[in-house]
């Protein structure tokens, strides 16, 4: 079994980008409400 889970920079990128998407969605939603 793998005991160490190695965090890589691309995982951070995925999480940041998807947070940005959600912020963009929020902007689109409120700007056109």
């Amino acid at each position, binding site marked *: 079994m793998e005991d160490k889970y190695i965090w890589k920079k691309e*995982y951070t990128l995925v999480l940041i980008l*998807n947070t940005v998407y*959600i912020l963009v*969605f929020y902007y689109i*939603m409120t700007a056109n409400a």
Partner: protein
Amino acid sequence: MGTLDWIILAGTLLFIVGYGVWKTRGSKDVDDYVLGGNQAKWWTIGLSVMATQASAITFLSTPGQAFHDGMGFVQFYFGLPIAMVIICLVFVPLYHRLKVYTAYEFLENRFDLKTRTLAAILFLIQRGLSAGITIFAPSIILSAVLGWDLRTLNIIIGALVIIYTVSGGTKAVSVTQKQQMFIIMTGMFVAFFFILGYLPADITFTKALKIAGASEKLNILDFDLNTTSRYTFWSGITGGMFLALAYFGTDQSQVQRYLTGKTVRESQLGLIFNGIFKIPMQFFILLVGVMVFVFYQYNPSPLNFNPAATSAVMESSYAEDYEILEQGHEELQTEKKMAQDKFSAALELREYATTIEAKQRIISINEKEKGNREAARTLISKADSSVETNDKDYVFIHFILNYLPKGLVGLLLAVILSAAMSSTASELNALGTISALDLYKRNKKGEFTPSHYLKASRGFTLLWGIIAIVVACFASLFDNLIQLVNIIGSIFYGNVLGIFLLAFFFKFVRGNSVFVAAIITQFIVIFGWYFNWMSYLWLNAFGCFLVILLACLFEGFDRMLKGPHIRA
């Protein structure tokens, strides 16, 4: 459909099949056939993972979903990127290190043969059924709108997939999925720009968004904590992540895509690719649906988009009532067009009060239209209870067939059939692999040559292809079969994910406890579904937690009964 459409449709599909067969001819052994010789690069894996998940229904149904209910459906995917990161961290390194061919092989490594066999059988039951539905779902829609024979369409889709999947195995699936994704995205982008071009001259994209917003189609995020709302930010982040973890982490049709990676890193980057592009892709497909909605604000739309439903009611004693509803619908459309013009002009002049007034008018007309459509659905149900009244699957195809120019219709039909083929290919590939390796090879006594197992893999893939076509041909005999397959999936998925989580995170639990817990859990989940304990989607979580709890309890009892260790 014109001649040009037929040429583009047939040419695209035959090219994909031919190229898939030619490019991957001559697999030497099981390693080549099942894992594509472990040569796949990250972009191939990423596209393959996305093409596997996106079935024809994604491209038919999602725009219709946005047309009727807006873009809130995108929230369903919010948990997917988190699941991708977890799979990259935990699942992928382990699968690669153990050099497994299937996800269930890992279970034998961690527990025992019987747990592996049990998980493999659970997979075959649910995935075998859904492969048939992946073929059936677009066939029933295309046969309804184009008048094509349903069974012939089932056989054509199934046979095309069988040709290259049986011939080239996993490599053929990956190679063709790259082209299918290219066709799919090209077709969707072209359709999107055509829709924008069809809008009145003064309606720009920004204005189209304002129009969609005024009709509440851009309510993308819902932070409501109410559990009865189907798509909310919270259900997407939690339930969506849970489902994505089960699907991408333990379903062989997905696991096999990233097991083909040249290295662990290629596999991980492939999944990261999916984590980055999945939400924008779904957002874009929903946006296409919203633009179709804006288009129909200025152009006539039918009361119900399913032609089979309309003809069923028009041939019944409810025809007169339906005609009255249609008349009301037409009047509403004229009113709506006027209100939209007023809204658009007010936006242009930046007259705040008039904008709000026009917006209120649009909302009120939309409410009336919604009521009208609901009344039409009730009439259709009364006329023929077997006809599908929910027309969201027919909205986009109605637009394609009635408004897009010749040639583009063929391209968009190629998009739909390519999507059906890409999902089915992965499913058949996984079903063949599991049958050949997890059941046949592991349980059949005797020594056989590598070419024997290669033949067995091909034979099982062909067999599952035939089963899928048969299921698709008889699917129409059952009411609401798609929901039935979702229910069957939910009954098994939670249990299988629970077994994997036990394997990864509960190191003290051993095979016997897991096996007994999994069997008991499966019976309890089936019992719970039969007596309607909860909505079937919650069975996923219930099964997962139950198997973990029971396995830990059994392991604890087992260790207790064997007595404490006496230390010298």
